[in-house]
């Protein structure tokens, strides 16, 4: 916010607090990101030279626009009113009788013009960056390491049981809220599950932890699987890796275990 312009001429204008407003702005005041956006729009609509703004006319348009918008929320209103105050202040300065013409640097509009020019550039850059974004979000990169050949196994970052348990907890919480009805009784044997897991690890090299649990239809079965995985990690048969927080966890057989645990 500019500290410069004290708004003396308007009553009932509250200076905006730097209120921590959430981002839900653009819904209100329709398409305008803020007061500068609105001003740029009005200037463009009138085909005015930004360096020679007829302040009185623009102020009228601006205030008129604000009056039509009765549903502005308070945080936003403060921001829009702040610029309104600045406009009115500039208008009053322009009306002061002067003996000589103003040098360019003394133009009371200067403060506003500089800001509008800079903001206009940011807006224009945005349209170019948006084009880039639109292309980039359609291109996918890989965020995993492909299976490596050769004997010596690369030791990946190991994940603590705590993180593993946390993801599991979050997952279970989601599952139980998503679909309570899936919890139904069915006996699942630990031995059978353990064997199934080891076989799966052999077959696929690695499994995606979250995906694997999502695939279970019952909570009980998922729980048993979870404890089997914990057991495999504890007994150092498998390794679990999470590249980044909140990302999925991948489970591998250890290299040495790949041979020994293969067929028991």
């Amino acid at each position: 916010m500019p500290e410069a312009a004290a708004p003396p001429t308007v009553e009932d204008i509250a200076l905006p607090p730097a209120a921590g407003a959430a981002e839900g702005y653009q819904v209100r005041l329709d398409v305008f990101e803020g007061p500068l956006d609105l001003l740029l729009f009005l200037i463009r609509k009138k085909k005015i030279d930004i360096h020679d703004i007829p302040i009185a006319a623009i102020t009228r348009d601006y205030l008129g626009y604000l009056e039509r918008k009765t549903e502005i929320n308070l945080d936003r209103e403060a921001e829009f009113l702040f610029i309104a105050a600045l406009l009115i202040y500039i208008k009053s300065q322009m009306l002061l009788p002067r003996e000589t013409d103003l040098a360019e640097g003394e133009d009371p509009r200067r403060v506003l013009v500089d800001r509008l020019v800079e903001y206009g550039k940011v807006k224009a850059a945005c349209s170019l960056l948006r084009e880039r974004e639109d292309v980039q979000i359609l291109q996918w990169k890989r965020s995993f390491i492909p299976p490596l050949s050769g004997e010596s196994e690369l030791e990946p970052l190991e994940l603590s049981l705590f993180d593993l348990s946390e993801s599991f907890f979050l997952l279970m919480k989601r599952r139980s809220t998503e679909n309570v009805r899936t919890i139904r009784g069915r006996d699942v044997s630990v031995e059978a599950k353990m064997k199934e897991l080891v076989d799966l690890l052999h077959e696929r090299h690695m499994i995606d932890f979250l995906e694997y649990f999502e695939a279970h239809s019952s909570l009980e079965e998922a729980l048993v699987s979870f404890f089997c995985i914990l057991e495999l990690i504890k007994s150092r048969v498998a390794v679990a890796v999470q590249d980044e927080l909140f990302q999925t966890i991948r489970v591998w057989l250890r290299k040495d275990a790949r041979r020994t645990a293969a067929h028991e």
Partner: protein
Amino acid sequence: MSDPLKNLVESLIFVSQEPVTLDRLQAVCDGVPAAELQAAVDGLVADYAADGRGIHVLRVGGGWLFSTKPAHDREVRRLLQIERKNRLSPAGLETLAAIAYRQPVTQSEVSAIRGVDSTGALKTLLEKKLIKIVGRKKAPGNPLVYRTSDEFLLYLGLNGLDELPSEEEIAKILEEDKAGEA
């Protein structure tokens, strides 16, 4: 066609999780002169660009990275069972642009440029790791100072900050806008 160094570079870029820089290639292939590595990369990029291929080599974030092509977005998302990636909100993009061009900047500087409190947008960008906190400004209140991150370059497919739209490109857009309104 078959060049051992080019093949090696291909597998290195393929396996990497982040853009592979020339420096890193040199560190990995010790003894190979930078010029030869550069030639190998150039050859690889040309190979992938030449015959219609499903993947291509991006020049991004100061290095090279494989990625799929935009045309395959729908099928890729179906295979991976993920939703379409969301664009940034207008407020988010505007804030990001203000930071990109004026960095290092503080929250209040960004807010002043936009004429709108930008705390919320900054938080979103931090969460998305598109910006990062790099220190504090020696000014009253010692506000935090922000910069764009490496992920920012990747996100927009830029090789470096010098690839941001230039003053001339911006001026052109502004001219077009003016003309468009008429």
